[in-house]
């Protein structure tokens, strides 16, 4: 044993001694070998305390050798890559690894908050509920911050994660979850039978317990057999072998969630490598071969560093060639615990005693024990000693109490099948008396269980069941299962009699002293469980939530069954009668980064770009997100002081000369077929059958409930073809609505429609010189004079020299305006040509802000007004509502409440003091009344500074607004402390007669 790794055995183990790795724990340098976990390397170094507990800040060591670990949680890596609550038992050692203990201050060995342990009488079950009830005002400012500081484990990085996370999909016939003996056998059968197989294991090495046990399989060690099987699986087509991959959840339709830790075993991911990959695996059949988890025994002082699961000790000896101590006793109620003593003896470690709670064990078993080991049957550990780590155990034997000096204790309380994934779709585990543990109950479709996960606790049974279930899954997936050769393995001794809790007996001497922990991670003791039961929390679901038993990040993998058994005992019921809580995804914690995958930052959601995007970027446009679209918001120029100055300039340029704006984002739908007009008649409140070919019309449509859904301009291109537009925001919703109406309501209509939003680049060209500009764009043979092409004309023609185009004479700004559409590939060219052709007319591009200002000046409603709560009448669109036909929403729009003349209705507003600023969201109240909810008369929906008028203007919904024009109200915005008297006016501030747009 070297000085650096004093607890490393001189030979053996599945580690690569030729590759020494340096790492740091709490700043101290140490070494380990390739193939180590952080836990095994720490044990080799002789580290006993690895962390402090959650509530009492008690020193804790390493309990297990797997993902069930409740104690040894560390902060891994540093800076932006810092990852709290990482289990030392699953961290694969790498060169330069840095980890720190958690939940301690100022140091691991001396922790100030360990005083909590002395205060433990007040930190009992339900402590938060009892203590922080009153006064409630203290909760937010006092209690919660203190609790948050004191509790919790580890610290988040507090910086953006520098690594990439990927999502991926996989499909297979048979998914095997767990690569121990049962899983390997099942996978081999399925793969050899030609099925597509995926086999996952959370460990970086396949083999499960075969890596941890000295078992002979047909003349070779288990790990050698494992390697052969893995080699064979890898050589077969359509078999995916996935180490470092945890199947964490079972979902509907044979879907399984898995997390592959692609680069967690490296200091940093390699170039182009993600740190982790979240897999969605769809499997025809899945074989659950997740093994079993050893259960500790609940006794006083059972959390002292040095106390470990007996099976974990075997893992450390046999797989990692590490011993956790020099004098190791075993406390067991199972034959399995004895094997740890035998394995320790084989590597020359003293086992002073095997303490077995059973009155007797089989002579064959006892005969295998070393002569130096005292065998104490009918005995129990009742207390432990040691300051920061175990020094001695107190044992109650039938002949009195003894103290035995030890530095470690292996505890074996029986095995709990890892049934977790069986519960994810609602299955409830059932109690099995033979092994005194829960086994899977009803299984969700497609899921089968094999091996220790199904309560088969011997190697021979695991192999046999693995083959059998693997064959069954293979057949069920549609293949003929082939037989495979399996090595012989003998059934080892596995008898057990459960011992749930070493209780205090009535005698004075024989008490279990000190806290007896059930849930190590959440610091829940046997007393807490008993107290909760006394306080009436008898249902296991209540007990769980009251005590927080099983609610830590380990979901009580080593705690739940002991907790249930203690409740059962104190209520005089069996465990089966007491029932069990169930497990939910994820099996082990999954980083949020992995769930987000590529969908963060710019990739959070896809950005849709308009055909003029690159051109707009060249023009220094500032972009705004509208739904998924990025639209030019405004176009700054050098010297602009602020956005308002820019927008004022853009508005003036349109109103005095000409401007253009990319409106490609509007939803565009090509509606065709003999019944196209009839279809539109039923969708919109106004009439379409009467629209002449070559004409455009404004329309509004309602939802079934009578409220306005959307509006837009639709043009008739031919008898049976319309070009419909929707608002940008509602494009998808309107299309979906149309599909519903056609497929479900009126399948008899002969109408076809398809989105052409992306097909056409469309620009609004607006302003007194718009026609002059357009004349230079549209091919000369087309006459767009006012006479030939009046307001609301629509035409298919050619532009830019023979390119198919569509021109609509419609106006959102109130100016003489056209919308011109060309195939999207010419969108960029059209923007550039508009600039070129328009230069001598003073053209300037404008963005969505200017679009908004001009529509408010003109009194057009938009999303602020069509907010799902307004009717056509509210918006001043009553005239459009046809009385000669039926349409969606007609009946419901006539509900009496919607006909109430007092409903807030679209009205315009100007500040009485022209220098005052208006605020959208302000509520209207009478000029001389209090600003109270009782006096509320409506709301300001849109405001803008009108450069045309030189003051702020607003649109709003005011009770009986149109009848009150000329009057005044106050617009009160308590949020921004704004209270402005406003004049009520018609909702149109510019060219109310519409002379400009017809000019």
């Amino acid at each position, binding site marked *: 044993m070297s000085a650096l790794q004093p607890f490393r055995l001189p030979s053996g183990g599945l580690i690569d001694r030729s590759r020494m790795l340096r790492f740091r724990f709490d700043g101290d340098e140490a070494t380990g070998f390739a193939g180590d976990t952080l836990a095994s390397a720490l044990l080799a170094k002789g580290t006993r305390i690895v962390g402090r507990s959650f509530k009492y800040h008690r020193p804790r060591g390493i309990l297990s050798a797997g993902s069930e670990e409740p104690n040894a949680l560390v902060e891994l890596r540093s800076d932006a890559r810092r990852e709290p609550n990482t289990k030392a038992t699953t961290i694969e050692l790498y060169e330069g690894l840095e980890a720190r203990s958690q939940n301690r201050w100022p140091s691991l060995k001396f922790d100030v908050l360990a005083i909590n342990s002395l205060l433990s009488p007040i930190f009992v079950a339900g402590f938060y509920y009892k203590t922080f009830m009153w006064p409630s005002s203290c909760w937010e400012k006092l209690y919660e911050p203190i609790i948050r500081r004191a509790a919790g484990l580890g610290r988040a990085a507090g910086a953006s994660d520098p690594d*990439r996370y*990927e*999502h*991926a*999909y*996989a*499909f297979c016939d048979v998914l095997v979850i767990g690569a121990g003996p049962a899983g390997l056998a099942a996978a081999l059968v399925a793969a050899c039978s030609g099925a*597509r197989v995926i086999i996952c294991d959370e460990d970086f090495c396949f083999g499960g317990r075969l890596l941890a046990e000295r078992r002979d399989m047909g003349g070779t060690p288990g790990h050698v057999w494992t390697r052969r099987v893995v080699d064979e699986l890898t050589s077969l087509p*359509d078999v995916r072998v996935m180490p470092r991959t945890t199947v964490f959840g079972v979902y509907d339709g044979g879907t399984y969630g898995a997390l592959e830790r692609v680069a967690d075993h490296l200091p940093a991911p390699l*170039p*182009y*490598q993600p740190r982790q990959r979240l897999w*969605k695996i*769809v499997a025809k059949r899945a074989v659950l071969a997740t093994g079993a988890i050893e259960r500790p025994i609940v006794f006083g002082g059972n959390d002292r560093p040095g106390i470990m699961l007996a099976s974990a000790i075997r893992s450390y000896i046999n797989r990692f060639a590490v011993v956790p101590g020099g004098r190791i006793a075993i406390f067991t109620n199972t034959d399995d615990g004895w094997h740890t003593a035998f394995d320790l003896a084989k590597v020359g470690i003293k086992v002073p005693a095997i303490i077995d709670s059973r009155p007797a064990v089989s002579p064959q078993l006892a005969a295998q024990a070393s002569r130096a080991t005292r065998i104490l049957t009918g005995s129990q550990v009742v207390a432990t000693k040691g300051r920061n780590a175990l020094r001695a155990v107190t044992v109650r034997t039938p002949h009195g109490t003894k103290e035995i000096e030890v530095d470690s204790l292996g505890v074996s309380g029986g095995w709990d099948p890892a049934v977790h994934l069986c519960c994810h779709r609602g299955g409830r585990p059932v109690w099995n008396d033979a092994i005194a543990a829960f086994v899977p109950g009803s299984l969700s479709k497609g899921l089968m269980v094999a091996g220790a996960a199904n309560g088969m606790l011997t190697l021979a049974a695991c192999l046999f069941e693995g083959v059998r279930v693997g064959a069954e899954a293979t057949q069920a997936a549609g293949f003929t299962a082939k037989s495979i050769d399996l090595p012989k393995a003998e059934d080892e001794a596995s008898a057990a009699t459960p011992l749930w809790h070493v209780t205090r007996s009535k005698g004075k001497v024989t008490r279990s002293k000190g806290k007896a922990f059930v849930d190590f991670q959440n610091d829940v003791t046997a007393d807490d469980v008993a107290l909760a039961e006394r306080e009436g929390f008898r249902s296991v679901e209540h007990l769980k939530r009251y005590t927080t038993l099983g609610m830590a990040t380990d979901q009580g993998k080593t705690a739940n069954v002991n907790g249930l058994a203690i409740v059962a005992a104190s209520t005089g019921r069996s465990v089966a009668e007491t029932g069990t809580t169930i497990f939910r995804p994820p099996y082990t914690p999954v980083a949020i980064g992995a769930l987000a995958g*590529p*969908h963060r930052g*710019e*990739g959070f*959601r*896809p*950005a*849709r*770009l308009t*055909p003029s995007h*690159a051109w707009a970027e060249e023009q220094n446009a500032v972009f705004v997100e509208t739904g998924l*679209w990025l639209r030019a918001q405004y176009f700054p120029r050098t010297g602009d002081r602020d956005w308002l100055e820019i927008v004022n300039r853009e508005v003036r340029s349109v109103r005095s000369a000409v401007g253009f704006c990319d409106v490609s984002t509007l939803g565009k739908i*090509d509606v*065709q*077929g*003999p019944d196209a007009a009839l279809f539109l008649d039923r969708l919109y409140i106004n009439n379409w059958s009467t629209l002449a070919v070559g004409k455009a019309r404004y329309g509004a449509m309602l939802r079934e409930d009578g409220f306005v859904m959307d509006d837009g301009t639709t043009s008739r291109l031919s008898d049976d073809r319309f070009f419909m537009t929707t608002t940008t925001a509602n494009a998808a919703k309107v299309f979906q609505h149309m599909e519903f109406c056609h497929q479900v309501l009126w399948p*008899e*209509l*002969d109408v*076809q*429609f*398809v*989105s*052409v*939003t*992306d*097909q*056409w*680049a469309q620009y609004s060209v607006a302003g007194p010189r718009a026609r002059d500009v357009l004349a*230079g764009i549209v091919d*000369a043979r087309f006459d767009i004079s006012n006479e030939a092409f009046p307001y609301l004309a629509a035409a298919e023609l050619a532009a*830019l*020299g023979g*390119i*198919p185009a569509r021109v609509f004479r419609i106006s959102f700004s109130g100016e003489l305006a056209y919308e011109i559409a060309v*195939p*999207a*590939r*010419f*969108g*960029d*060219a059209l923007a*550039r*040509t508009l600039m*070129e*052709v328009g230069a001598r007319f003073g053209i300037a591009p404008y963005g969505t802000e200017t679009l908004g200002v001009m529509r408010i000046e003109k009194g057009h409603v938009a999303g602020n007004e069509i907010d799902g709560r307004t009717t056509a009448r509210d918006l001043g669109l009553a005239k459009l509502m046809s009385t000669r036909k039926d349409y969606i929403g007609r009946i419901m729009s006539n509900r009496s409440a919607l006909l109430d003349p007092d409903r807030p209705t679209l009205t315009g507003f100007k500040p009485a003091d022209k220098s005052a600023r208006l605020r959208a969201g302000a509520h209207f109240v009478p000029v001389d009344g209090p600003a109270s909810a009782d006096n509320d008369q409506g709301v300001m929906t849109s405001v803008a500074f009108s450069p045309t008028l030189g003051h702020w203007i607003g649109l709003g919904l005011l009770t009986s607004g149109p009848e009150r024009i000329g009057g005044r109200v106050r617009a009160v915005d308590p949020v921004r402390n704004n209270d402005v008297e406003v004049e009520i006016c018609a909702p149109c501030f510019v060219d109310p007669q519409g002379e400009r747009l017809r000019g």
Partner: protein
Amino acid sequence: MAKLDVTPCSALQGLAIPGRYGAANGGPGVLLSERADLAFAAVMVRKGAGEALTRRVRAVFGLDLPTTSRRAARGSLAFVWAGPGHWLAVTEGGDGSSFEKLLRHDLSNLASISDQSDGWAVVRIGGVRARDALAKGVPVDLNPRVFTAGDAAITTVGHIGVHLWQLDEAPTYEFAVLRSYTAAFWRWLIDSAAEFGAAVKGPS
């Protein structure tokens, strides 16, 4: 009037710049190129005209309209199933407007036709690691046991709608994405292919 300089801009212009992306060791695992030479039209059957349309397509174009998610091709023309009674007609070369006119003429009164040539951007994806790269976003089983040449699928890739089909067993796929989503899709594609090394060719 002065002659206007009107240069069409393909959907992946400025994105699919030819060259090597991602891992540079070994041959590229993924081959990418834009299909800028395709014209598309939506073909939507008129009410009750299903059988007549099938007969007409067979008579005029010599191919059977697929009724499942498949692509039927003959020469430079293909019909890809796009939903019940709905196909995406694809042709190499030719402009969208003429393609729409041609189909409107040949399938008169049996289907509504809508030019989609500028609505879809198409990326050709091939290479020995194409399936591995695509698995990072395509929720469809592309294993050759399940999905072969002539198969098509309508699905989403990271919130982006795609219409994809397989051309040959190499394998070669074509992914059609709505034009406005091209940059987002390309970003996903290049990121996903990076670890296998990607080679981008100029558009065809």
